[in-house]
């Protein structure tokens, strides 16, 4: 045993002074909160800004499949935020700017998972690392150990600039204009803790890409997206960025809008700062549901937003950091450990060829390759983390990237080393092939750990991986991508996959059944250039069957080199919808109770205190009928949009919402007629004002979709984009109506 009494003392002198001070202050806040001297909301934002999140069941309640039980934590009434029990385990998010990490950093992350978490490290869809089931009182030391190796979790959550992401191939990519890493690094540390980023109404996410056509940077769905670009002026090559703003997924996805076709490199930081100031000043603060910058850009229009931003830019006091990094753009350059050597003649380890085909790519630098480690659901163990670090040191010169596909990438591997590197990965259980294929399913945490999860996205992703690996797939099917989100917040990025799945619930015979909306029409290429739309909900347990049918349909019907999006566009969503229709039936609970639990969780999915009295029994047929009709209308709206009729599509989407609202409102007033104003009024009175149509986190957000569409009158659907949005909103409204339906029998006063 050593004499060190604390990590603070043990790491003295090894932590940046300002980072150390911040952690000390945070630790003091913890102590003050324990003494009741810091208000819980203030403390919640304090911890969130350090990446310390809540987790499922942290309200001290858990449904065990039969009833809700109280989790009797020893902290009594002490909370770490509103309805958040102090002792309840939480999640620690750790920012890895651009997904970059050294071997030493990975080793420390592994140690932290081993000592403070549940022995698992998880890579997120935004190149962060998350540790789950962490006690808040362990977080200061956890942060100190990170800080000692150059990692801060500051602003990993909260209303702040989140992890800056970038293409993991930056610097070695064959199609990039130039390496975006020094720029992404500069903006990361320029905006971290900057005064102009402390007053946002919501988070702000930035992404970098080296080129326009590949999927790796996903700039289109970020609050700000920068795509590397060069131009020649007076015979000199200038660097800059095609710069976008106002993109986002979430419940209502928005494609980012072009802010500047060529933002010169020296303007990247000041313009970003000006955008942050405008967002902080004019962005929504009260209504969280409309506080992302995408709503501000939409409200002002991109031209006005740009005008205001440029005006703000002109007022900024010059800061040497805007351009100082440009004098050393090679500061982050990586050097290979070994000379490039060609692949030997073999023989190679079993499985090597398949792994090489899917997981290995040539770099721009001749003789060097990147090699992806396929991490199932983004998870790996501390022992595996140490093995990866060790391999990185011995083969690549210490260069690793976490990817948005939830994998880890080696760079600078000499071709000759690939078989040995593979063999070492394989012996650590890390030699799985199939990176960037249909089996490499991406997922958010979903109901496993997330407070907002509706369905088990990880359970589904795990099941799809297993299912799709059972038999060889046609090459066309193998090249597809699947992404799953547990709720409408879209952390699994389901909108941009070939096959996206969004967790929802449905009521069948008075019990809840986990479902997933099938989302098609998305495309990852072109930095996520197309967002899909939900075309129907499938019971969770039938999703693997749906994937089989969809992939078979594609393999059989594909023409030439058609992408899945092109295929769906050609055959039409009606054809795809047939598959959904065939799989929608849920057997009764008595016939097959397995439908009533989610993947990987044997508890009954239905909430135990659900009212199933006579009143609910009577209301079921009518309400279900109305909700089914509203779903059909949402789908019809999509078909109209696909047919180039945005206004009709918007009207149908609005009608779908009315239909669902009427179905619910008639429960309290059977005289509710067909007049839209009457429906909206009755719906508001009986469902919204009473908080029956009410999301525990989003409040009346979904009801507002109907109210807004109603107030817009004939202005609905003036463009494809606004019709698309209205359809998205209608789908979410109908999903929310299903949630409310489970409460309607007992809760409507």
């Amino acid at each position, binding site marked *: 045993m050593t004499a060190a009494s604390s990590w603070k003392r043990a790491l003295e002198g090894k932590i940046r002074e300002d980072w150390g001070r911040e952690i000390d202050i945070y630790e003091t806040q913890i102590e003050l909160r324990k003494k009741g001297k810091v208000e819980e909301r203030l403390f919640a934002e304090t911890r969130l800004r350090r990446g310390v999140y809540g987790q499922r069941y942290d309200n001290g309640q858990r449904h065990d499949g039969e009833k809700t039980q109280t989790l009797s934590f020893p902290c009594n009434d002490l909370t770490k935020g509103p309805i958040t029990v102090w002792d309840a385990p939480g999640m620690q998010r750790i920012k890895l700017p651009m997904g970059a990490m050294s071997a030493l950093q990975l080793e420390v992350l592994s140690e932290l998972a081993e000592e403070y978490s549940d*022995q*698992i490290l998880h890579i997120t869809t935004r190149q962060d690392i998350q540790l789950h089931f962490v006690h808040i009182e362990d977080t200061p030391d956890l942060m100190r150990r990170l800080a000692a190796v150059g990692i801060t979790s500051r602003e990993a959550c909260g209303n702040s600039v989140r992890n800056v992401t970038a293409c993991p191939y930056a610097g070695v990519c064959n199609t990039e204009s130039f390496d975006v890493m020094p720029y992404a690094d500069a903006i990361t540390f320029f905006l971290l803790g900057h005064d102009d980023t402390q007053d946002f109404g919501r988070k702000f996410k930035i992404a970098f890409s080296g080129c326009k056509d590949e999927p790796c940077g996903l700039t289109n769905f970020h609050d700000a997206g920068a795509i590397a670009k060069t131009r020649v002026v007076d015979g000199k090559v200038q660097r800059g960025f095609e710069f976008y703003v106002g993109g986002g997924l979430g419940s209502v996805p928005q494609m980012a809008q072009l802010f500047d076709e060529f933002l010169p490199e020296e303007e990247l930081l000041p313009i970003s700062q000006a955008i942050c100031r405008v967002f902080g000043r004019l962005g929504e603060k009260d209504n969280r549901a409309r506080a992302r910058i995408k709503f501000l850009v939409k409200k002002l229009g991109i031209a006005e937003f740009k005008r205001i931003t440029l005006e703000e830019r002109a007022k900024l006091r010059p800061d040497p950091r805007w351009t100082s990094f440009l004098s050393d753009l090679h500061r982050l350059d990586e050097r290979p450990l070994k000379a490039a050597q060609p692949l030997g003649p073999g023989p190679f380890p079993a499985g090597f060829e398949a792994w090489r085909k899917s997981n290995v790519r040539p770099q721009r630098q001749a003789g060097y390759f990147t090699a992806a480690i396929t991490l199932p659901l983004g998870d790996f163990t501390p022992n595996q983390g140490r093995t990866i670090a060790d391999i990185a040191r011995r083969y690549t010169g210490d260069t690793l990237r976490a990817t948005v596909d939830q994998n880890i990438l080696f760079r600078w591997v000499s071709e000759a080393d690939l078989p040995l590197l593979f063999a070492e990965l394989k012996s650590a259980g890390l030699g799985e092939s199939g990176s960037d294929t249909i089996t490499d399913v991406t997922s958010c945490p979903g109901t496993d750990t997330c407070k907002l999860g509706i369905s088990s996205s990880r359970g589904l992703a795990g099941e799809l991986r297993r299912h799709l690996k059972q038999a060889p797939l046609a090459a066309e099917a193998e090249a597809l991508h699947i992404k799953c989100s547990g709720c409408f917040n879209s952390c699994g990025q389901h909108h941009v996959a070939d096959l996206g799945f969004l967790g929802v619930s449905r009521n069948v015979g008075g019990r809840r059944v986990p479902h997933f909306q099938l989302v098609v029409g998305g495309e990852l290429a072109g930095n996520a250039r197309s967002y899909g739309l939900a075309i129907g909900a499938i019971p969770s347990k039938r999703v693997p069957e749906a994937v089989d049918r969809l992939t078979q349909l594609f393999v059989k019907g594909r023409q030439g080199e058609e992408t899945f999006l092109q295929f769906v566009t050609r055959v039409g969503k009606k054809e795809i919808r047939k598959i959904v229709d065939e799989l929608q039936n849920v057997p009764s609970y008595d016939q097959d109770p397995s439908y009533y639990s989610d993947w990987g969780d044997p508890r009954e999915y239905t909430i135990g205190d659900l009212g199933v009295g006579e009143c609910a029994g009577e209301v079921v047929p009518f309400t279900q009928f109305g909700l089914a009709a509203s779903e059909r209308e949402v789908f019809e709206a999509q078909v109209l949009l696909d047919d180039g009729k945005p206004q009709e599509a918007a009207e149908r989407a609005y009608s779908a919402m009315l239909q669902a609202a009427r179905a619910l409102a008639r429960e309290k007033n059977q005289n509710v007629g067909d007049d839209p104003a009457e429906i909206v009024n009755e719906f508001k009175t009986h469902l919204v004002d009473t908080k029956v149509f009410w999301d525990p986190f989003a409040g009346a957000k979904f009801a507002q979709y109907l109210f807004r569409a109603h107030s817009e009158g004939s202005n609905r659907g003036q463009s494809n984009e606004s019709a698309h949005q209205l359809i998205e909103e209608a789908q979410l409204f109908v999903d929310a109506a299903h949630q409310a339906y489970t409460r309607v029998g007992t809760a409507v006063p």
Partner: protein
Amino acid sequence: MVQKVQVKLFSNANADVEGYVPVLHRWIRDNVLGELVIDVVDYSHVADGPEVVLIGHASDYAIDRGGGKLGLLYSNKREPESDDAFTAALAKALRAASLLEREEGPKQKLAFRTDELVLRVADRLNAPNTDATLTELQPKLRAALDRVYGAGTYELARVGTPKELFGVLVRAKSSASVGELLARVS
């Protein structure tokens, strides 16, 4: 004072790990362990680590395949510091193992052998994986193991690299049942 002790008991047979997921959910529902347990997490997709974890407030219980060996990994997270932390951890691990062995649901059942186990301390600050730590902790380790196995009936050796948690592999000369060992520490 020692805290954060881990115990890994090895199963002498492969098992239907998936079949234990509902078992552990039931343990939460019925408060089988008599301590606060919160959730069950399925990590069966991960090779060489925990497969299914019963997450608790003070302790986690994982059906674990770390090192390629299936077993039960008990991890004390927040039990009070104690001079007898090794005995306490062994008792809790053996009790959970005994309960798992008695479960009827899974098709292939876990059956633990006791001729070998691993003890670790998940605290690199106070217990780095060095010979010095072994020297310092040996009396406490032996006190606990003497009680479980009997003095002179086992060997222990430090295992793992300096980067890993401090750990010792314990090899006993005989393999008593889990129930017998549990009776000695209860």
